[in-house]
């Protein structure tokens, strides 16, 4: 059953990607990208990664769609009609795609329980979480207990990214010719 759901979802993902490539109106591209994110979130749900699925649905399909729409509103909503030459990009894409497929050829088969990733640290996490009863959701246990330093770093990264974007977006406003409507400095 699961393999059929996966097949349907992955086919729809491929169709959406092709539609994004064919689409010239950037508004349509943004909408299709939102669709892509929702499909990807569904794939994550099938893979039992519900935490990732929630993030993908909220950030990928929600917030970034809005941000892309604002960006379109600020710029132009049509793509340049023709790329100069498709040969070099096609070549690079083919090489990268081939390298990726070649790289996955040595990976353990999809969904196998005795893959190395499930035998190394995962049993330890699961056993410890059950023994100490720290968190029923082991993802939270890993994020907040075993790797709390990582999570602190991630929070810092989110904050730093925010600062960077705000600095980038504010620079031009200060230099801009229209000095009329900037009342509050922060």
């Amino acid at each position, binding site marked *: 059953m699961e393999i059929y759901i996966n097949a349907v979802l992955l086919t729809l993902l491929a169709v959406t990607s092709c539609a994004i490539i064919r689409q010239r109106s950037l508004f349509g591209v943004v909408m299709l990208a939102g669709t892509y994110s929702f499909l990807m979130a569904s794939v994550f749900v099938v893979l039992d990664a519900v935490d990732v699925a929630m993030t993908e649905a909220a950030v990928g399909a929600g917030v970034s769609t809005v941000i892309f729409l604002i*960006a379109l509103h600020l710029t132009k909503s049509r793509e340049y009609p023709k790329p100069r030459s498709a040969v070099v990009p096609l070549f690079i894409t083919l090489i990268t795609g081939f390298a990726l497929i070649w790289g996955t050829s040595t990976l353990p088969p999809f969904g196998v329980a005795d893959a190395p990733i499930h035998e190394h640290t995962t049993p330890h996490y699961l056993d410890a979480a059950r023994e100490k009863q720290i968190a029923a*959701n082991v993802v939270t246990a890993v994020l907040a207990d075993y790797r709390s330093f990582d999570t602190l770093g991630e929070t810092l990264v*989110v904050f730093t990214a925010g600062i960077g974007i705000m600095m980038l977006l504010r620079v031009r406003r200060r230099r801009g010719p229209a000095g009329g409507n900037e009342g509050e400095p922060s």
Partner: protein
Amino acid sequence: MKSDVLLRIGVKLILPYMLVFAAYVQLHGDYGPGGGFQAGVIVAGMVIVYALVFGAKAARQIAPVALVERLAPAGVLIFAATGVPSLFAGKRYLDYSVFGHDALHAHEWGVFLVEAGVITTVAATLIAIFYALTDREHS
């Protein structure tokens, strides 16, 4: 940006449920899927949805720019400060066992504080980015 009645009423109806869902995702992260990151995005989504329908100016009145920009670093500080009490107790940084008498309680408090820091930073940063973008629209 003021849209029709249906959208405005619909958004007003949906916002409280979004808030409750964000609180559920935040506080229930120990037991179900979710946690600070996901709840933070939902909270930011609330403000963004409100701004889309009622305009950025109205959104700035419920979540003022100055407040949002102070909350983003405050979240990182909450997270970082959570680790400090254990240092004074002679334990390792971010060791939650100082927050209560038994391990389970202490752990719950520790995770609660850490997640509070995460939701604050994530929500405030996303809202601040949104504000910074809509700010350019006006100028």
